[in-house]
């Protein structure tokens, strides 16, 4: 990564954050911490990492959560949403006002913002929707239209349905048990929502299978997807190397990229969703990768001719975008939405000409 980026003033800080409130929100908890330095640096899509269990804790790994909201009160507060999954999150749920937590943030690469006013579809699975509302506010500042598509297993697990309905141009809800909105999963409604909203760009956060399907469906319309992944992390700051996933760089080479610093937001097309949990044989550093990678590059060469204009921005796999400059492509994601050169550095899986025509 570039020195100037990580050393920038906008980088993360480690602070003692005082708990302001912990409240139940349906099936989840929301905690607000007083952490002015983090609030001041925050950009939508970024996350915080918390030490849990106190100084003599037996739980050594930090817990990472998307930042839901920041507010100016008390000098600057940070709110995040979590579900109780184990002892660490149980401990967090038991915190009370005035407790002090060791918190580091804001971490990770935020959602890139479009330069032009475009139609944005924000898709959230479960409490993966938490980071989308701050994003929506930023998008509206840029006069973008915001549609929401939120889904979960049941109504109490759809985080932010009311806010979505109140603030979005449209809000579509799906639940697997049909207790809220349409019965089914978000991808069942995706075609319709894209058509109705004339979607130019998709932002998504949720479980990996959802992100994979959203990316695959959006690809049919040539709509770029900015996907925030939820990968297990030990540190959140880029040193432990546990949260890696295969991501294709602008040079066409797949690297095992860290979702904490190279992500959590990736261009959907650059993530090899089907290969998560494996080391692809052509991944940088895999045994014999060079030969395989070269073959793949040759196959992709024709396609890349059109892509070099957008070369430097497709950086996810190769070099993480700095926190100070989230949108490497000055045109913003919306601009590539239809008919533009493929923003990623790889050949599409099928014929590209057919796909582009399909969008209209």
């Amino acid at each position, binding site marked *: *990564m570039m*020195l100037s980026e*990580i*050393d920038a003033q906008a*980088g*993360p*800080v*480690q602070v003692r954050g005082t708990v302001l409130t912990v409240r139940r929100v349906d099936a989840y908890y929301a905690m607000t911490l007083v952490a002015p330095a983090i609030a001041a640096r925050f950009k939508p899509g970024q996350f915080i*990492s918390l*030490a*849990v269990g106190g100084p003599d804790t*037996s*739980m*050594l*790994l*930090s817990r990472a959560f998307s930042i839901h909201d920041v507010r100016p009160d008390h000098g600057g507060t940070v709110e995040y949403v979590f579900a109780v999954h184990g002892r660490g999150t149980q401990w967090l749920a038991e915190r009370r006002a005035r407790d002090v937590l*060791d918190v*580091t943030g804001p971490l990770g690469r935020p959602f890139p913002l479009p330069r032009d006013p475009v139609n944005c579809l924000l898709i959230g699975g479960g409490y993966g929707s938490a980071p989308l509302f701050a994003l929506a506010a930023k998008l509206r500042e840029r006069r973008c239209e915001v549609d929401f598509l939120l889904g979960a297993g049941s109504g109490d697990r759809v985080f932010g349905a009311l806010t979505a309905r109140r603030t979005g141009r449209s809000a579509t809800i799906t639940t697997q048990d049909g207790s809220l909105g349409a019965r089914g999963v978000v991808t069942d409604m995706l075609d319709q929502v894209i058509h109705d909203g004339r979607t130019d760009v998709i932002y998504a956060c949720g479980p990996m299978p959802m992100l994979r399907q959203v990316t695959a469906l959006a690809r049919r319309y040539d709509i770029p997807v900015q996907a925030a992944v939820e*990968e*297990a992390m*030990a*540190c959140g*700051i*880029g*040193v*432990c*190397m*546990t*949260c*890696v*996933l295969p991501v294709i760089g602008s040079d066409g080479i797949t690297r*095992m990229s860290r979702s904490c*610093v190279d992500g959590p937001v990736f261009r959907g097309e650059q993530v090899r969703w089907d290969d*998560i*949990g*494996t*080391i692809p044989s052509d*991944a*940088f*550093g*895999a045994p014999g*990768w060079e030969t395989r990678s070269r073959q793949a590059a040759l196959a992709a060469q024709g396609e890349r001719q059109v892509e070099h204009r957008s070369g430097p921005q497709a950086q996810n796999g190769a070099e993480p975008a700095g926190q100070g400059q989230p949108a490497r492509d000055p045109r913003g994601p919306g601009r590539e939405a239809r008919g533009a050169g493929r923003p990623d550095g790889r050949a599409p899986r099928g014929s590209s000409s057919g796909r582009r025509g399909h969008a209209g």
Partner: protein
Amino acid sequence: MPVDLRAKLGHVELPNPIMTASGCAGAGRELAQFMDVSKIGAIVTKSVMLSPRSGRATPRMAETPCGMLNSIGLQGPGIDAFLQRDLPWLLSRGARAVVSIAGASVAEYAGLATRLSDAAGVTAIEVNISCPNVEHRGQVFACDPAASAAVIEAVRGRARYDIPVFAKLSPDVTDIVAIAKACVSAGADGLSMINTLLGMAIDTDTMRPQLAGLTGGLSGPAIRPVAVRCIWQVREALPGVPIIGMGGVRTGRDALELILAGASMVSVGTTIFHDPSACMRVLRELEEELTARGVERLADVVGLAHQARGMAGQTLRRSTRIRGS
């Protein structure tokens, strides 16, 4: 009066004994966001190999009581990228770089030592002969005295004469003293102890191993007693050989425990994952612990626990008095 914290890494003097543990701090750059990397004794870099390496599949970690299992598998960009990018950065920040190297063969270690000898600014080399996340145990050189000696001899022979070479040992052996002696005979200037212990965890819901690589290295406070024991045994057998101690150090008091066992320097590892500036805190706490005990020089307490019962305190008082007079 401030405590004299200077520590000797072989013949190289460091301003203080606290370092990062290899594999827990990258090449220092990420931590520089949270602390001044030149303020600690040294940054011990993540083990670098000759060629780029993708590492193992995910999941790569599991939290265990007071510890964690990791199964990274030495993912890294290789020595070329390290020399081009990481080492110059560390130097530009005024940090001291202890470069950890790992290889699959004696020749690879030799090649790495040669490359490092041509580079400026290598404070020391830590030879990782004990990474547990390799295809088979036969590849863990530190499990066998002859294999350990072969690697160390190759590295010592290629490394520049003025760069100390430390061998990083595995606690997963019957007799760590035999391995330590083999490494020292082969030319190691010092020893690093301990690497992670080979461990495993099974998810009782999926009824499958939690790690994609099945087994992983156990680290964290859970293994600190093992580290203390290993350092103790080796210090007892080889009192003149400098030791970098690591294994579950979370506080300054933990660091002091390893120092009393015989470590001249202490690396902080897994604790960094939930406290990115942990090295600075441990350094501050160590100074406080020493001050509270009336210790003026760190060197006075290295291996002090080996003194006969009742003697440790006396020795300390005497040395303090002598300097005071």
